[in-house]
């Protein structure tokens, strides 16, 4: 058994696995940045109640939030070619993650803004700021502080969800471990231990960060 572990963690295999970790992190980071920007915009639109626009955005957010991410991955990778666009694997994965996570973040942003005392906005307006100035300079910064723990834990689930993209053959950790143990079944347990450990370390560090931010805020 021990020998299996030693054989399985050969330098080549480890390099291959860590390459997968790199792809996981690449996809996660790009999706995090994209979904943070898009999610904030969508959340603000949903909050400020622009006639018709907010209602339509609200419905779109609710529909996408209530679908499995796996389905959205299929849409972007297998469905889009039907419409004439054919994304590569990594862009398709990033697109799906960004679409899905933006709607999750939009809800967090909306409830974060709602949690800010309405007196803040009234005070800002009474001091001569316009509605948008009040929102941008007074309400949003306070809302952001309140939202940080929820946002970080959403990012943790984003990192974990990148593993779903193995189904569209994204060469990340899980996919690569399957290739390695596909060559030698003695490597199955070592490979599962390795990827579980790698995911655990990344996600646990993020959750420690979330806990720290939550404490500092309270």
């Amino acid at each position, binding site marked *: 058994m021990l020998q299996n572990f030693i054989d399985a963690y050969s330098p080549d295999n480890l390099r291959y696995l860590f390459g997968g970790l790199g792809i996981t992190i690449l996809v996660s980071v790009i999706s995090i940045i994209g979904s943070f920007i898009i999610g904030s915009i969508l959340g603000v639109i949903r909050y400020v109640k622009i006639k018709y626009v907010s209602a339509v955005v609200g419905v779109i957010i609710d529909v996408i939030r209530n679908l499995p991410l*796996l389905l959205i991955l299929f849409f972007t990778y297998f469905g889009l070619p039907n419409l004439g666009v054919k994304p590569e694997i990594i862009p398709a994965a990033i697109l799906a993650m960004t679409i899905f996570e933006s709607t999750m973040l939009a809800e967090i942003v909306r409830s974060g803004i709602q949690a800010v005392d309405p007196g803040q906005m009234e005070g800002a307006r009474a001091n001569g700021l316009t509605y948008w100035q009040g929102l941008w300079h007074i309400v949003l910064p306070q809302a952001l502080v309140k939202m940080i723990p929820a946002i970080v834990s959403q990012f943790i689930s984003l990192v*974990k969800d990148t593993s779903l993209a193995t189904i569209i053959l994204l060469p990340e950790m899980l996919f690569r471990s399957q290739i390695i*143990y596909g060559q030698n079944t003695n490597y*199955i347990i070592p490979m599962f231990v390795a990827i579980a450990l790698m*995911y655990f370390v990344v996600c646990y560090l993020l959750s420690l960060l979330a806990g720290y931010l939550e404490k500092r805020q309270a």
Partner: protein
Amino acid sequence: MIHIFQAYGGTLLYGLGQTLLCSIIALIFSLIIGTFFALLEESPNKVARRCARAYIELFRNIPLLVITMFFYVVFPLYVIKMNGFTAGTIGLTLYTSAFIAETVRAGIQSVDSGQMEGSRANGLTYWQAMRYIVLPQAFRYVIPPLGNQFVNLVKNSSTLAFVGGFDLMYQGNVIASSSLETMAAYASVGVLYLIITMPISYYMRYLEKRLA
């Protein structure tokens, strides 16, 4: 999309049934396991608290797919044979139970500590007070987040498609590849998922507003 329903209605309904079945089984078991670990984490015993924390952190920080694949690939080799549906349901249960434990723990903490003190002062033991006084009050706060967990559970049950669990997502793939109408097939699957998840999440939002 309508002709997909006409041609493959039976297959889709079977998938929907499997998805619901697996979600409900996983919900029941993860509620039991999750509440158990929440109680352990709130218990006065230090070792019990450590164990509960370790369990929760372990399953919260590993992707569901890795857990499911572990039961699908490793278990049949060394322990017992199981089909994709069983492996997927066990994976879902363990993964969700960690989140439910966190939810229930937050619920227990939101109950005023005077409740526990009062019942102890009236002669109840710790576990009696927990069972009859604190938990019933905690569950009232916990219902909206638990409902959201159930929505997540239904969505996460799509990982059964990886292990041949014949769920909705799996059938969607089969239909997409046999009818070659990828978009229509996935759209029909999406509609069926929304029929389950949308009403629950709207109802939970309503409950949240009413409780607040």
